[in-house]
């Protein structure tokens, strides 16, 4: 039974943001690090970015609508530049972020990219997920694990600031504020305003200041409003009692601040100005890219330092989100799992977590809990496939695992009658034996995908990829992470 100890997968990350669109292609090395006859332990051992695209301005049809055809042309050009064809891409993610995510662009982009995306690309949007990818791409997640210091990454882009707090490498908190470098647009290297966005209007109103499209502004006129916005960014880090303006600009619930913050990293388009030695001195410097990004970056640094936050430099600034998307969106299941299937990959599997506390004692009571949840979520009306997620059996004893298996089969009986596969995601290391127990108690063919050592608590949907490493593990993409529920 030959089996390789090492496999490489090529992953693409595409980030379509308010201002910029980027793409990276990375190669992930997956290895069984437990050699010899030991129990396998399959891990992602290396992530190498093999191609970074140019940074493109996001092609727009008008202010609200992304030009999906142009986006697909960008992707095509970059694949060519990297010497890759769509068939060579194994996995990855498209993330539509910032302001653009609010607009109804997702569908058009998914359609336009369908042919480029390989087997396993997903389109995801949502500020929290974006924040986490950015923090992983910037290196904040790794930093928090290596230095054992709680680190907050703020990805400040064109339209939004996305916060992700990391504790020992894990995202524990996230939030999104409607502040970014592109909220007011100018003639490039000039001082004439060409556009004022809604959140910028809000900030102006709060300051009692008035600016209009077509107007020319001086640096002293512009600075206070940018300072106010930078102040809001820091406000979210400092306290849970926010100023009126911060409250209005928050797009998600604020950070819960359950952990004291040791370090702050800024990624995104304005990051380079946060870490610059000097701030912009003239309007021409401020509006070098037709917005006020450089000034926002500088004011943010001033504000953070004034309030005693310690800034750490990220490894990636403007490409943090796209690198995070390309390299971090794939999770691996545990290495002893039970797969009896021929449907993988499956996308958009709805995750349901019926057990809020300890798993009940008998198969009947387990089944009841499942049925109730199925009824509550109207799973019977849902065309797609669901996965049942849980921490683990009542105890790790064989008896309890077997009882859980019986309970699951009972509770899912009606669902399984529709010839759908039984998908289970367990946190505890018992996927293989749970699958075995299920297999031993059904008398008709049943597809069972029972994977373990994955936490899917915070996600609503997962994509499960084709098995890797001779069926030892499956890649899983978790979607729609929301911490503040």
């Amino acid at each position, binding site marked *: 039974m030959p089996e390789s100890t090492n496999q490489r997968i090529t992953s693409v990350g595409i980030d379509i943001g308010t201002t910029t669109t980027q793409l990276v292609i990375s190669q992930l090395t997956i290895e069984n690090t437990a050699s010899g*006859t030991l129990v396998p332990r399959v891990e992602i051992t290396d992530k190498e970015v093999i191609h970074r695209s140019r940074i493109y301005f996001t092609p727009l049809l008008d202010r609200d609508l992304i030009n999906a055809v142009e986006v697909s042309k960008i992707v095509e050009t970059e694949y060519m530049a990297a010497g890759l064809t769509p068939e060579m891409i194994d996995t990855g993610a498209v993330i539509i972020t910032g302001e653009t995510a609010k607009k109804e662009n997702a569908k058009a982009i998914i359609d336009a990219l369908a042919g480029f995306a390989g087997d396993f690309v997903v389109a995801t949007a949502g500020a929290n997920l974006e924040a986490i990818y950015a923090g992983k791409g910037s290196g904040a997640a790794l930093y928090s694990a290596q230095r054992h210091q709680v680190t907050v990454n703020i990805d400040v882009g064109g339209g939004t600031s996305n916060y992700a707090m990391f504790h020992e490498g894990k995202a524990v908190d996230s939030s999104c504020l409607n502040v970014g470098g592109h909220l007011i647009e100018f003639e490039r290297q000039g001082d004439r305003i060409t556009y004022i966005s809604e959140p910028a209007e809000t900030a102006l109103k709060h300051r009692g200041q008035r600016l209009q499209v077509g107007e020319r502004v001086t640096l002293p006129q512009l600075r206070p409003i940018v300072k106010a916005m930078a102040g809001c960014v820091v406000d979210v880090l400092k306290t849970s009692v926010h100023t009126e303006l911060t409250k209005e600009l928050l797009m998600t619930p604020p950070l819960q601040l359950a952990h004291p913050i040791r370090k702050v990293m800024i990624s995104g388009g304005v990051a380079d100005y946060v870490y610059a030695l000097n701030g912009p001195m003239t309007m021409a410097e401020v509006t070098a890219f037709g917005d006020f990004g450089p000034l926002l970056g500088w004011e943010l640094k001033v504000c953070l330092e004034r309030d005693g936050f310690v800034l750490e430099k990220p490894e990636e600034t403007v490409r943090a989100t796209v690198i995070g998307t390309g390299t971090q969106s794939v999770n691996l299941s545990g290495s002893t799992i039970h797969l009896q299937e021929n449907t993988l990959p499956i996308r958009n599997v709805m995750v349901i977590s019926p057990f809020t506390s300890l798993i009940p004692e008998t198969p009947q009571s387990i089944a009841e809990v499942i049925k109730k949840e199925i009824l509550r979520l109207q799973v019977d009306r849902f065309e797609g496939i669901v996965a049942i997620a849980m921490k683990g059996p009542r105890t790790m004893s*064989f008896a309890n695992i077997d009882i859980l298996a019986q309970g699951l089969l009972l509770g899912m009986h009606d669902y399984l009658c529709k010839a759908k596969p039984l998908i289970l995601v367990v946190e505890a*290391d018992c996927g293989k034996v749970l699958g075995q127990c299920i297999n031993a108690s059904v008398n008709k063919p049943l597809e069972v995908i029972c994977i373990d050592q994955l936490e899917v608590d915070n996600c609503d949907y997962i994509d499960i990829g084709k098995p890797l490493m001779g069926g030892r593990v499956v890649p899983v993409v978790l979607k729609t992470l929301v911490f503040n529920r």
Partner: protein
Amino acid sequence: MTVANNELEKVIIQSVMEELAKKGLLSHKGKDQVMAAAMMDTPLVPNTESEEMVTFPPQEEMQISNPFNADAVKAMKKLTPARIGIGRAGTRPKTMSLLRFLADHAVAQDAVFLDVSEEFLRRMNLMSVQSAATSKDEFLQRPDLGRRLSEEAVKIVSEKCEKNVQVQILIVDGLSSTAIEANIPDLLPALIQGLKSAGIKVGAPFFVKNGRVWVQDHVASIVNSEVIISLIGERPGLGTAESLSAYMIYRPNENTVEADRTVISNIHKGGIPPAEAGAHLTDVIQQILAAKASGVKLNQQK
């Protein structure tokens, strides 16, 4: 510490006892007993009734007085049951660390010297035979005796065990009876269920007392199974005394060397959970059967 010869010593003993009592490590009764013995220069006879159990603080509790980065210590402690981040008292371990060390050592000794209980074997419905080592002492001093069955055992096995099965399962106490009692109830049913689902013919598992790994070769020579698997108690350490290994071999014979065996170690609740191990071992045995080889020979075929 049983006899105090001079005043100074008595004072020292008294203050140490007071300190221990204050920290809750010694009951008042216990303290009085030690003091009385010290004052009267009589040997201290431990009175089990007056002694109270010491409960240890949880392993993950911070033992370092002024950690520079408490998160770092916590994260590292989470990664290993080793004795790290335990602080120190001057150049020595803290009382709690020392007591925990002694207690863990006692647990390890118990695991080696205790027998798997008759009640357990009955509950698990396991036939029991013995190796050629007739006592624990002999077992420890003469590894060679633990590697073959006693004459009586040879008779029982040849009479009672099914011959020519695909897989024979042995449960062997080895160096930890504790490991057997802790893991077999969850491992064995998972393994048997897995093998049966795979349509593999399995002989009735039985227990070998005072056995070592090689005893499987002797059993295989009698039952003539294709694969023989020993679930055997590992030499206990100070981290856990509950760890079990599975040693498997395909058709051992007089030329068999250690490298012909496949081993999966570290089966216990803090390592590979026993039930999951049972399911995994099913896979490994299937591979061995398919390759008609185990150990290094199996790896070379992969």
